[in-house]
């Protein structure tokens, strides 16, 4: 028999393969060369140190929103609100980075912490309403996303605007950027955030798998009735799960604010980091390590796709389709399991 573990690895791999296959078919149908297209994609993602750095950079916030959604999922909650939590985290980190002037060893961690708190606060509302009034978290988080979008735009314009649509730049002491990394990756915007993401993944894994908090959270996620019977507070755990999930998403925002941009700009629409995080979490089977790996894949696809139109003439939307197909097949893992079992049977 195929072990579950093997399946869990096989399914995403199969899905990725199928996603690229469908992408190739579409390219052929519309008269593009899939070889050129994918070569451009690969080179645009890993072709040199610069692109590799960019891929890593893009993966950082994706990993963190992925962790946010995975964490909530494991506790039986669906956090569509990562999008809004990213905004408030980003804003909070930038505000803190602009307003205060502290030694870097204090300033940087505090800025990240402030972002985490802001994201957690944003997630607290749906968590509280779910826990105390049974309001569906999906609706509330959707609404909170819009509120975050408008409020953060307003705050930027009213209080933090330096020029155009951008806030003042954060103080150097709060920045995640470093000469060393930029040089090492030939000028890429890569920043120390990847360490933050890895620490985040470790924390999630540790909390969920190794601590009593995680034990409670998962129990509530699987069976709230049994959790209550066993003396756990379902309400407390729902709120806690949302707080932690919001914290991760807030930190994802901090990565943009303290790392990639060093500021925040007003947004016409959503950043999609939160929505892509759903895909990341899923492809990563809602595990910490899985989310990090999935974020790397999506980071590579997103950065690589920028090179497809200029180099191979293929519209970058194709990558969007490929990602969607991958998600689709991961979601439908049953069919892959079925196919593999079938295959095994025939072998015998």
């Amino acid at each position, binding site marked *: 028999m195929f072990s579950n573990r093997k399946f869990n690895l096989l399914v995403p791999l199969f899905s990725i393969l199928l996603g690229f296959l469908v992408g190739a078919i579409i390219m052929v149908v519309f008269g593009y060369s899939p070889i050129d297209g994918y070569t451009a994609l690969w080179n*645009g993602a890993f072709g*040199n140190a*610069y*692109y590799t750095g*960019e891929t890593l950079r*893009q993966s950082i916030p994706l990993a963190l929103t992925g962790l946010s959604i995975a964490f909530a999922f494991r506790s039986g909650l669906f956090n569509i609100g990562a999008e809004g939590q990213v905004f408030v985290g980003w804003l909070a980190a930038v505000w803190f980075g602009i307003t205060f002037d502290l030694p870097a060893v204090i300033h940087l961690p505090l800025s990240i912490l402030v972002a985490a708190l802001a994201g957690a606060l944003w997630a607290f509302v749906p968590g509280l309403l779910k826990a105390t009034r049974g309001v569906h978290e999906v609706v509330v988080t959707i609404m909170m996303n819009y509120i975050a979008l*408008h409020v953060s*735009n*307003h705050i930027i*314009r009213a209080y933090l605007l330096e*020029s*155009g*649509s*951008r806030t003042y730049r954060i103080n150097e002491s709060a920045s995640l950027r470093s000469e060393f990394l930029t040089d090492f990756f030939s*000028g*890429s*915007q890569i920043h120390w955030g990847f360490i933050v993401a890895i620490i985040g993944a470790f924390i999630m894994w540790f909390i969920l798998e190794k601590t009593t908090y995680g034990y409670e959270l998962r129990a509530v996620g699987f069976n709230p009735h049994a959790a209550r019977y066993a003396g756990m507070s379902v309400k407390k755990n729902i709120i806690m799960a949302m707080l932690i999930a919001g914290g991760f998403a807030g930190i994802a925002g901090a990565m*943009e604010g303290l790392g*990639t*941009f*060093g*500021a925040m*700009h*007003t947004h*016409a*629409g959503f*950043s*999609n980091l939160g929505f892509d995080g759903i895909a990341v979490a899923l492809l990563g089977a809602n595990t910490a390590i899985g989310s990090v790996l999935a974020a790397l894949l999506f980071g590579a696809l997103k*950065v690589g796709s*920028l*090179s497809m*139109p*200029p*180099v191979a003439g293929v519209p*970058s939307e194709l990558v969007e389709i490929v990602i969607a197909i991958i998600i689709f097949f991961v979601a439908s893992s049953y069919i892959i399991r079925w196919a593999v079992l079938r295959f095994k049977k025939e072998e015998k």
Partner: protein
Amino acid sequence: ACGTEDEEPAEETDDETTEETTDETEEEAPDFSVAMVTDEGGVDDRSFNQSAWEGIQAFGEEHGLERGEGYDYAQSDDAADYMPNLNGLIQQEYDLIFGIGFELMDSVEQVAESNPDTNFALVDDVIEADNVASVTFAEEQGSFLAGVAAALKTESDEVGFVGGITSPLIKRFEVGFVAGVKSVNPDIDVRVEYAETFSDEQMGRSFANSMYSDGIDVIYHASGAVGNGIFTEARNRIENNPDDPVWVIGVDRDQYDEGQQGDHNVALTSMVKRVDVAVQEVSEMAMSGEFPGGEHLILGLEDDAISIADTNDEAYTDEIHEEVSDWEEQILNGDIVVPETDEELEDFIDSL
């Protein structure tokens, strides 16, 4: 320029076609390449990214460059794409790279610093660096003329302005427009609204609905896709009542096409901002070794980079045309200095 005189109708061959035919045969393309990075609007935003790209294409074709080698663009779907896009083009060793839109200011500033050997140009904002040319437009001038046209067209003595997101740039549109209106008739009311988005058509629709319902008959917008909603509302009113006096003044490029409703057109005129002209001009300068690095070019009426469209000759009557031209003359010869900020506007109105 080369001896192909005995070819067919010589008189008709204007500069461009001559060069095109010759390029393919022998003339070596110049050793110069130019590229641009769009902002989030994308290259086909039917607005200034598109206009910039048209400028670059025209430049490329004019000089026999090949797309992908001599000229190209990189499209940004997200603010995070600016840097990778700029760096991608730098790696492909383009000689001149445009950043289209003030959103790219930071990114251009950064890459300019770390790539002192490449020339950059920023459209719509200013960067102080030796290898960056900054190009902005005197939108207030065009908006002033739009205001004049609006003031002449309005019957209700009420006109409206819809801005996208509040910013110094859009402020120039608003202030110029108000100044123009008041110059013609200080008693005309101008209602100003900001959608705080450039993308929500529904919002534009609602603003227009509410403005037209309240008796405003000309709306000038500087709001990207929000403006589509304004056109929709105006067209809808014309469909219901062809005699409804509702007008829209377009922005950035001639939005005449958006205004067509049956055989009527609601686009009174448009404040045309010729990003293509600017892009072409800067490219020419760079190619001929006169790159205006460190300079800030403000292109306005006198550079033909700002103009007022007269496509809709039914609505935009000769009288309007003449009067607008008068005012244009006054701006060109310096009699009028169009205000750019709220304070300047106050002074301007006081002085009327």
